[in-house]
Structures are given as C-alpha cells and as structure tokens.
C-alpha cells in the first residue's frame, strides 16, 4: 500500500515538475516579451515623437482644429503626445498578446482569438467615436456662432441639441459596430429619434402656436425698425 502511495506521490511530483518545467520557460518568455514590448514601445514612442515634431504635427493639428477639440474634450495633452501614447500601447499590447499565446493555455488562447477577432471592430468603433466627437464639437460650435450672430435667443440650446444629436447618432453607430444588442440599438435609436421629431412637431404645431406667432411678429417688427441702413464697408 505504502509502495502505491509513494508511486502516486512521486508521479504527482514528477508531473508537477514536468508541468513547471514546461510552463516556467514559457512564463519567463512572457515576462521577457513584456519587457521587450515596453522597450520597443518606448523606442517607437521616442522615434515617433521626433518625427511628429519634425513635421510640426502639433501646429498642423492646431490649424485643423484638432487641438482645441481635444481641449474641449478634456484632453490636456498635445496631439503628438496622444498619438505617441497610442503608438506605445499598440506595440506593448502586440507583445503582450504574443506572450499570452506562448503560455499555450487553452483559456488564454481562446480569449486571444476572441480578442483578435473583435479587435478590428473595436478599432473601427473607436474611429467612429473619435470622428463623431470631433464632428459634434465642430457643428455645435458653428451652430452656436451662427445663432448668436443671427441674435437667435435659444442659441445655446440649439448648439447643445446639435452636439447631442450627433453624439447619439455616433453612439448608436459605435454600439452597432461593436455588435452590442444591434437590433435593440437600431430600434431604440429609430424610436427615440422619430419620437423627438414627432414631439417637436406636435409641440411647435399645437403647443407653440401662440409662441411661434409672437416670435414671427416680433421678428417682423424688428425688421421694420430702423437700423438696417448702416453700410459697414
């Protein structure tokens, strides 16, 4: 009996040692890849920063309105630094994924393949989100300035409506891209958008009849008032 126990224990230790023997080099390789990932990431980051500075990427971004859009979105870093950071993380994650694959753990491998399949969708969604956010800021600002110049009393409300209109459309597109409750998102967006338009139509058509009349009258009176004869040029 004791012989049997001994064999079992020895076998268990042998298997464990074998397992550790197989796992440890792979784990060390993972660590090494992570370290290399950090180093290569830093190197690419430094190189990219030099290139971006050489081509005056920040001043180009200023001119294109990207810097102010980032500031408005709460990002305090310069556009070149943001791009630099993204480059670092892309490189690091590439090495990290490779490292996890080397471990050859079934769960990790499955997870990796799911992540890799999902990655293009995630990138596309991020791009849509970035474009939508920039467009929302741009058009909200344009609407605000135009409405103030036209002396429209609800200028800020108009700008906010434009911003959130574009942002909600963007959000619906992002969720669709990510495949999260696709049908529900499309249906919810259509219902919400249609509902808002219908509500506005009813509100202005019925509830705001008197207000619309008053606004039109006031606007016409303003036009009749003197003040349009000044020649600015």
């Amino acid at each position: 009996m004791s012989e049997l126990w001994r064999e079992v224990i020895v076998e268990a230790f042998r298997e464990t040692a074998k397992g550790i023997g197989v796992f440890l080099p792979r784990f060390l390789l993972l660590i090494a890849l992570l370290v290399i990932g950090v180093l290569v990431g830093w190197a690419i980051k430094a190189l990219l920063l030099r290139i971006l500075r050489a081509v005056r990427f920040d001043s180009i971004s200023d001119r294109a309105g990207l810097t102010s859009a980032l500031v408005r979105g709460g990002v305090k870093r310069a556009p070149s630094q943001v791009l630099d950071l993204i480059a670092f993380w892309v490189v690091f994650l590439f090495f990290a994924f490779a490292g996890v694959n080397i471990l050859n753990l079934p769960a990790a491998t499955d997870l990796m393949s799911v992540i890799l399949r999902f990655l293009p969708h995630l990138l596309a969604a991020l791009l849509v989100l970035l474009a939508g956010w920039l467009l929302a800021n741009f058009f909200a600002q344009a609407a605000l300035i135009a409405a103030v110049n036209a002396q429209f009393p609800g200028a800020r409300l108009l700008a906010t409506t434009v911003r959130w209109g574009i942002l909600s459309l963007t959000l619906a597109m992002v969720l669709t891209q990510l495949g999260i409750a696709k049908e529900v998102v499309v249906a919810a967006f259509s219902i919400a958008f249609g509902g808002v338009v219908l509500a506005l139509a009813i509100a202005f058509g019925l509830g705001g009849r008197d207000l619309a009349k008053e606004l039109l009258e006031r606007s016409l009176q303003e036009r009749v008032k003197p003040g349009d004869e000044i020649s600015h040029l």
Partner: protein
Amino acid sequence: MTGGKAQVILSEAAEEAVKRIQKADILVGIPSYNNAKTIGQVVQMVSAGLAKYFPQARSVIVNSDGGSQDGTPQVVEQVLQENPADSFIAPASPPIEKIVTPYQGIPGKGSAFRTIFKIAEELQVSACAVFDADLRSITPEWVERLIRPVYEGSFDYVAPLYRRHKYDGTITNSIVYPLTRTLYGKRLRQPIGGDFGFSGKLAGHYLSKDVWETDVARFGVDIWMTTTALAEGYRVCQAYLGAKVHDPKDPGADLAAMLMQVMGAMFTLMEEHQTTWQQVRRSEPVPTFGVQQEVGLEPVQVNVERMVKALRQGLRDLLPVWEIILPTETLSELLPLGLKDLEEFRFPPDLWVRVIYDFALASHERVLHWEHLLKSLTPLYLGRTASFVLETKDSTAEEVEESIEALCEQYEAMKPYLVGRWR
C-alpha cells in the same frame, strides 16, 4: 497667399481686340455682374472722363463681366456704340477702344480684375483705373483723379478718398483703416474703397502673383491690392472723389460673412508680410490729390439697441469660444460691458484695439477653426460700432474724423502688444 497659377485665358473676342489694338496708354476696367441698371452711366462717365482729360492718350475701356443674366454686357455695348464721349473728343484725338468680355476663373471681383490686369499687360498700358459697376455718383473727374497721378506723376497706386456719412463704412473706420495704417505705416484713408488707379507696372506685378485660385479671386481683392502696393514699396497716394453713392447692397447681406471676408484677407496678408509690418514703427501721411468738397449726405438710421443686444448675447452665449481666442485680461474687461445701460454703454477704444490684436494673434496661432474664429468677432464689432455711434451722436463730421484719428493713434501705440506676442 498661395494658389494654383493657372494661365489666364482671354475670350476669343478679347484676344482679337487686343491683337487689333496692339498698344494703349490708359485702360479703365469695369468689373460687373448683373449691373444693367447702373453700368450704362458708369461707362458714359468713364468715356467722358477719358475724352475730356486725356484726349491725346490711346485709351481702352474694358468691361469684365461675370456672366450677368440681366443684359449688362449688352448695355455696355449699346452705350459704347452711342459714343457718349463724342462731345468731348477733339477732332484729332484717337478713338476710345472698347473690350467687353466675360472673365475666366472662380466667380468674383478678383477674377474680373485678373482679366483686366491681363489686358493691361498685353496692351502695355502706362496707367489703369477700375470702377465699380454699381456707382451712382461717378463723374468724369473721378477718372482724372485716379489716373493723372499715375499717368503724369510717378505714383503706382491711387486710393480713393470719399466723403462719407459719419456712420458709413464702420468696418473701414474701426478696423481696416487703423490696422492697415498701423501695420504698413501709410495713412490711406479708404484701403477698400473699390475704385483705384494703378500703373501698368503694378498691374503686371499683381498678375504675376500666385493668388488667383484663392479667396483673393472671390473677394478681398481690394485689401489685397492695397496691401501688396503698400508692403512691397510701391509709391502710393490718394485722391478726393467726393461722395460715394452706389446701388443699395442686398439688405440681407450677412454681416458675419462680410466681416469674415475682410478680416480673413487682412489676417492672411499679415502672415505674408510679417517681416515688413513688424519693422514699421510709425505711420506717415500719403500725398493727397484733389480738393475736399462738402457734399450733402443723406442721414443714416442706426439701431444701437440691437447692436448692444448682440454684444450682450455674445457675452452670455459665446464665452466658451471667446475663452479660446482672448486672454483672461481682455475677457475680464469685456464682461462688465454686458451690464451697462444703453445710454451709458461704452466700448473703450483701447479694449477694442486689444480685441483686434488678440484675434489677429489667435488667427496666427490657429487656436480655432478659422471661419469660427472670424465669425465670432461679429458681436464684438457690433458692440464697438454701437459705442462709436453713441459717442459721436452729436458730433460733426470733423469731430468724428478726429475720433477715428484718436483710435488710429491707439492702434499705433499698442502695436508693441501685437509684435511682442507674434511668434
């Protein structure tokens, strides 16, 4: 300003006319677009002016039209066939030649001018003048005033000097004149008057510039011509023309768009000539021809209340945009303006100058989308205009001119603020 340098292609008829005429001494250009109602009189006055004051010169009138739908070129042809200058022409004088041609390129006054410059270059003229086609107050003397300093003098550029109502030309009075004078050092009172005289040499120089695919071709050609002449050292002067009355502009014309066009052109030219204007320390008067005459001007109605309301709304709603453009010190001085009663409302000149310089710096640093930046100046401009009207409501024309002079001095005194921050 840069752009594509496409070859100017004159219409076949224009090419033939140029070949036939071969050489001329004086050219008068009239750019037009749907000006059938007024262009006839402009052509008559120009013909009379050329015949009366330059009878021995070989002269050409060029109408450069932008595809008018109301028969403008036909009116020009008809008027020219009637030979309106006959009564002035001495028997031995050469006849006045005519070229009526559509222009090529981007629709706009600048493209019309380009065709005129091209014909001037081909005909090797000594002196040119251009007149707006919607003028109602043009006389034969205008031709003489704008051409003689170039034709018989040594000047390259003659700017007009109109007698205007004290509230007319507020963008010119509060921004364009003081800023041009401060930047380039010459006191040209009407830098964007619309009617100019210039030498054939300068016409050729304008033509050689690579700007005809840019906004210069559309609008902003007036300030571009004036600034180019000033910044590149051409000899400039100005000539009294009397009152300027033109066809009423579209009442729905968008002030923000107008301001954007003028300020956009000025700020772009500041980039191009930065080394020149940074070295200019003070301004000097330019030679002025003709005699200033008192002319009756119709009163102008101004709704000050609406202008002040525009500024107040700007201070309430546009703050997030102005915070990007203006430094905190400027903003903190602007904010109390929104609290003042109408009668007490004043927009101090020094604050206004700082606002303009801050906008120029913001445009230089591209802190905001360019169109947004330029258009967001509108409520501030209306506030300053309201203040100017209130300050000068009981003033005579001379007193108003003194107040504009004081504003110019303020611009000049504060120029180090602009130069010091321009990187």
